[in-house]
């Protein structure tokens, strides 16, 4: 149970990092230390390291967007999630919490339930593509954690999202 709480705290930190686009936070957390030799060497943990969280966030894509009041996956979302599934099966040291979010147009309780539907739809897809279910947890933030703060569709569309938040969990 305490490990569970610890993971949750890590997740909270990662969420903040994602919100502020503070990439590279996890650079020091991945395996190995930098060789420091050769200009062409890939810095471990950087976005150029395909096993890094930064790579997952930026190159694979850690988030997908949803249509108003829907939890069905769009074609574009499925492409991103297929890449997430591939990455997760390559990088088996990681576990993930899938966050579901809603825009502000809706009551608090309904949006919590809607966010849960979205997170669950993502988890089901990833499992269907071969990711072990025990590596994936879900959480809904409803409308509590908007990324964009305007009250217009341009912002709402970015807030109706799920984010796959990685934690180096299994080997530690």
């Amino acid at each position, binding site marked *: 149970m305490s490990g569970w*709480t610890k993971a949750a705290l890590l997740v909270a930190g990662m969420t903040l990092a994602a919100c502020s686009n503070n990439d590279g936070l996890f650079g020091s957390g991945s395996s190995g230390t930098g060789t420091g030799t050769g200009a062409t060497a890939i810095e471990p943990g950087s976005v150029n390291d395909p096993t890094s969280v930064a790579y997952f966030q930026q190159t694979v894509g850690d988030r997908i967007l949803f249509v108003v009041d829907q*939890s069905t996956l769009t074609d574009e979302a499925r492409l991103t999630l297929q890449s997430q599934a591939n990455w997760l099966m390559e990088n088996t040291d990681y576990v993930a*919490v899938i966050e579901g979010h809603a825009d502000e147009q809706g*009551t*608090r309780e309904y949006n919590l*339930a809607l966010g849960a539907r979205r997170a*669950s739809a993502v988890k089901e897809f990833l499992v269907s593509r071969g990711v072990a279910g025990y590596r994936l947890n879900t959480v809904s933030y409803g409308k509590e954690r908007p990324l964009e*703060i305007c009250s217009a569709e341009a912002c709402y569309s970015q807030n109706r999202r799920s984010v796959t938040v990685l934690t180096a969990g299994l080997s530690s």
Partner: protein
Amino acid sequence: MTRLLITLLAGLVMFSQVATAQNGPLRIEITDGVVEPLPFAVPNFVAETGQASQYARDISLLIATDLSGTGLFREIPAKAHISKITNFSSPVQYADWKAINAQALVTGAVSVSGNNLEVKFRVYDVFAGQELGSGLRFKGTTDGWRRMGHKVADEVYSRITGEGGYFDSRVVFVSEMGPKNDRKKRLAIMDYDGADIHYLTDSSSIVLAPRFSPAGDKVLYTSYETGFPQVFVLDVGSVQRRALQNQKGTMSFAPRFSPDGSKVVMSITENGNTDIYSMAVNGGAPKRLTSSPAIETAPSFSPDGSKIVFESDRSGTQQLYVMSVNGGEAKRISFGQGRYGTPVWSPRGDLIAFTKQNKGRFHIGVMRTDGSEERLLTASFLDEGPTWAPNGRVIMFTRETQGASGGASLYSVDVSGRNLKKVANGASDPAWSPLQK
């Protein structure tokens, strides 16, 4: 909490007038038709001891503010008064109060001895020329002076309207600080009028939608302190809290007490599906009350404890349904345009308040418990989460303003739709307590 001692001043010579005015002319029948507030006067209460002057002034002002704040009463200011009340026992000069059209007159006296405060008061029906009800005396401590003022105002309100008051009550809510994308939330409690705020949690994790127990001593709420939303129960006095249910892989939210305080209904989400469950406050396995793949949430008991109103999108959109406390078949009660959520049964049992979303606007509304006679009381960019005053006459709710700098405030509105006013800034998710004992 301050304990108040209430003594009926009957038997004293000065209260020998028999109160027959209960059926007399001074009576506001609270109906949709009331638009002209009843004029009243509360001359400064008489300070009967040296230290009592400030309390006497503050308590008189608080009583006048409580009454005027209902929209049902209008205070005649002191500068218009002809008579001054300098002795609580002296006969009232009815003609002087008639002349300024004060239909109700409240007189009182305050005495202080050490930390002890005593307030006594009488209510007069000026035009009938007699006392309305009997004189009462409240005893308490000086730091409880606001509660004593609210108690007096409740008694005045009750004698004139014939209904229970709501001034000596509290509101538990979520205090909000910071921008929309980094909002800090913590549980807080205050008097119904926004005074005397105390914080019950820190802002280290998201907290949502607190709800009072029927005795007002406990609060149910949802917290993310484990990283996942979970229902907690908190003791208001000690601020001790515990998770109500703790099944890994699920989330729980939208809790509410049963009218006897023994049970909790709430939503539990498992594998993305949200249903309604009930469980004993003291523990045990949650009992599942709904089992459709739809979103079922925001349950609220009827005051007799026999039914639960809740929202479900089983029809395709959010609508309101009523079912037995044991679950089973549910009857849909909302049929208007738009979406309906967060239903709350009134303490009188006659109405259900709800949030309605239609054509990009949000409303707080009420309907009869069979769904008939729907009335919308408010309209804005985002109104949600109604809670009832203990007498079922006033509704408080959250209003969120739009845009990047938007924020949440608490508002209240009369069940007739009149008297909309702001109660507190930087606050959401109010829940009104019962009247305090």
